[in-house]
């Protein structure tokens, strides 16, 4: 039962985290290169610009859900399982989501990486 709870929490982390990652990536692409903006406009302008972006706000909300799911998962399972498993599955889900929603060019090299990571996750769960 504890095992089921752990994997349920991991699934929640992956879903919330992928949604958050995609929203945050879109927000930061709209904001532009932070280093360049900081140099030109100062830190507070950059912070204000990021904080006003609606994608950022919804992204943070999704990440908050992912964070509390992580707290649940860590209270039930080993960090060396929960950490890599949730992060790696999120990585695979992100490759799919980034291609669909962010129009990133996920080429053979990046898909290969996704498969290797998926294999790694299967071993971690074994």
């Amino acid at each position: 039962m504890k095992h089921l709870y752990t994997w349920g929490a991991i699934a929640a982390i992956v879903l919330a985290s992928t949604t958050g990652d995609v929203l945050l990536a879109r927000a930061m692409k709209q904001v532009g290169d932070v280093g360049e903006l900081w140099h030109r406009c100062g830190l507070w302008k950059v912070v204000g610009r990021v904080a006003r972006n609606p994608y950022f706000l919804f992204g943070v909300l999704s990440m908050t859900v992912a964070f509390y799911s992580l707290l649940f998962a860590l209270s039930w399972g080993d960090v060396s399982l929960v950490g890599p498993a949730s992060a790696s599955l999120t990585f695979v889900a992100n490759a799919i989501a980034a291609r669909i929603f962010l129009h990133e060019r996920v080429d053979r090299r990046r898909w290969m990486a996704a498969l290797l990571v998926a294999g790694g996750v299967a071993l971690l769960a074994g």
Partner: protein
Amino acid sequence: MTFRRYLVLAGVTVFAATGDSLLSRGMREIGNLSLHHLPELILAILNPWVALGIFFLLGFFATYMTALSWADLTYVLPASSLGYVLLALIAKFLLHEQVSTLRWLGIALISAGVGFVAGGPALTHVPPEQEPAVLDEPVETRAS
């Protein structure tokens, strides 16, 4: 990719692995949580290990957002995933968890996946709706 950008990616890795490990240690002290005791989950952030973990995860968030401003999501995530190896080392030597041979092999496979993307381009798509780089109001340019 400049040295400063590699430094940002390293920051993503170190902050994430350290933050997760601190959270893990804190949650061990608190014990198992249940959905029937939600206030305990909120109060979990008062534990010093959890609080320190959150501090490191804020560092992770800042560096992660910076990296996402100039690189693809599918580049940033794998490029910073050497943290899994760091996480396993922390779990084994500091948290004294059992990390089996199969888990080490899994971590090695994940790291190999990193190698595939690390050599490719960091950015493959810039959304057309990107905001103009110059802000509306006049801005003082810092001396360079």
